[in-house]
């Protein structure tokens, strides 16, 4: 199973890098990251030791287009072309097919996020030096873990919608809505929302003060596991093959 997972992942990764949707969505997400960075600096100035948390918020809010674009294509395209039946006729388990495509989408998404992190850091202003107790470093680490877990959950969600939906565009739109909603809930304190929402960065600040609250990370990882499981079950059902010829 391991080797087929990597065969599928490699093929999807190379197809993703060659496709226009990855680069286009990366450009959109980068523009969003730059805009949000500038907005945060202007409307909610924060002390240097909180800026890393702000970066996490910017990443959370700017990556949904990227996640939606890279994860909603693989199954939808193959369903539309019929190539999914060819894949399922190969000695590949359903779980391996889902995992292979998930790994490729996650790699594209996390790779793109590194670019977005640089854009966000550049637009959000100087981050300041880490304090001697390393609080900001820890804060940034847990924040990046939460942002990465969010990406994984959105990729899994996108794969699920990619299987359910007939069109790649429909799957991308559904993923974008779900990802953006969860990002807004997780990011919480936006310049234009109430300050006491489900603010991930408040948890992160607490973490920097020595209170380890990793709920956002585990919530996103649980969501990823759920959507992966749901995608495997959908694939197993072969529901798109269950219609008779006219």
């Amino acid at each position: 199973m391991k080797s087929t997972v990597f065969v599928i992942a490699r093929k999807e990764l190379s197809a993703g890098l060659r496709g226009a949707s990855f680069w286009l969505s990366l450009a959109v997400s980068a523009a969003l990251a730059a805009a949000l960075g500038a907005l945060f600096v202007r409307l909610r100035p924060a002390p240097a030791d909180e800026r890393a948390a702000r970066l996490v918020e910017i990443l959370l809010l700017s990556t949904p287009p990227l996640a939606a674009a890279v994860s909603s294509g693989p199954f939808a395209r193959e369903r539309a072309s019929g190539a999914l039946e060819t894949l399922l006729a190969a000695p590949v388990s359903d779980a391996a097919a889902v995992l292979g495509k998930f790994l490729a989408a996650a790699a594209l998404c996390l790779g793109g996020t590194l670019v977005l992190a640089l854009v966000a850091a550049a637009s959000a202003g100087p981050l300041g030096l880490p304090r001697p107790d390393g609080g900001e470093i820890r804060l940034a680490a847990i924040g990046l873990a939460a942002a990465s877990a969010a990406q994984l959950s959105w990729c899994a969600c996108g794969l699920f919608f990619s299987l359910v939906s007939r069109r790649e565009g429909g799957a991308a739109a559904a993923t974008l809505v779900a990802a953006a909603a969860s990002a807004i809930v997780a990011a919480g304190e936006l310049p234009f929302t109430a300050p006491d929402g489900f603010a991930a960065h408040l948890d992160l600040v607490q973490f920097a003060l020595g209170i380890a609250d990793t709920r956002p990370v585990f919530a996103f990882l649980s969501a990823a596991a759920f959507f992966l499981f749901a995608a495997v079950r959908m694939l197993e059902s072969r529901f798109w093959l269950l219609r008779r010829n006219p």
Partner: protein
Amino acid sequence: MVDARDLVRGFGGEPAVAGVSFSAESGERVALVGRNGAGKTTLLRLLAAVLPADSGALAVAGHDVFSDSLAVRASVGYLPEGAPLDPDLDVAGCLRYGGALRAMPRRRLRRRLHEVAEFCDLARLLRLPVRALSAGQRRTVALAAAILHDPPVLLLDDPLAALDPVQARKFAAMIASPQVSSGRLLVFATHDEALVRSAATRVLVLERGRLVGDLPSLPPGTDLPGAFEACAKAAAARPPEESGK
């Protein structure tokens, strides 16, 4: 090679395959014929282990489909209806991807790729993206992908559909050639009478999911609709426990 007993597969409460039983051995070229919706595609999907049966027993190339579906898929070459190919790849990539999914050793994959490309006349198309291929070329690439791993069982679903007469004749000759059909069991679903007459050594007639006829060949002077009618009538006249077997 294939041993099916009382295979049943339903869609939304309606049986698409209703108690089909048959056996076929290596070297046979079996044509599945029947009207649209008779269950040909579903039966091929069951044989390819793409779709699980609701009940019955099915062994393909010595492997049980229910308990070892991956081994069955490894033993089967399958050309689905419409000959779908991965739109993200070029022709060589498509063939290599299929070989890699079947864990073919690199050297063997290279040798087989060369052989099937030569046999199917694909050498000049290998670098072309799948999107740029004509219907006939796509069909040929899909056939090449299906025989690449030299499977003991080859399943073709409506291989001549949507081909013009020239392409259809060329493709039919390819299917009947020893490179494709000798030494293995070939099962193909078709509406093409000429293909049935030229390539099949056995004809299975399906009607509403039931196997209503098992003929050594299409009788002379009888066209496919005539064969459907005759087999359906004969099946209706048989006692219920014998029909579908």
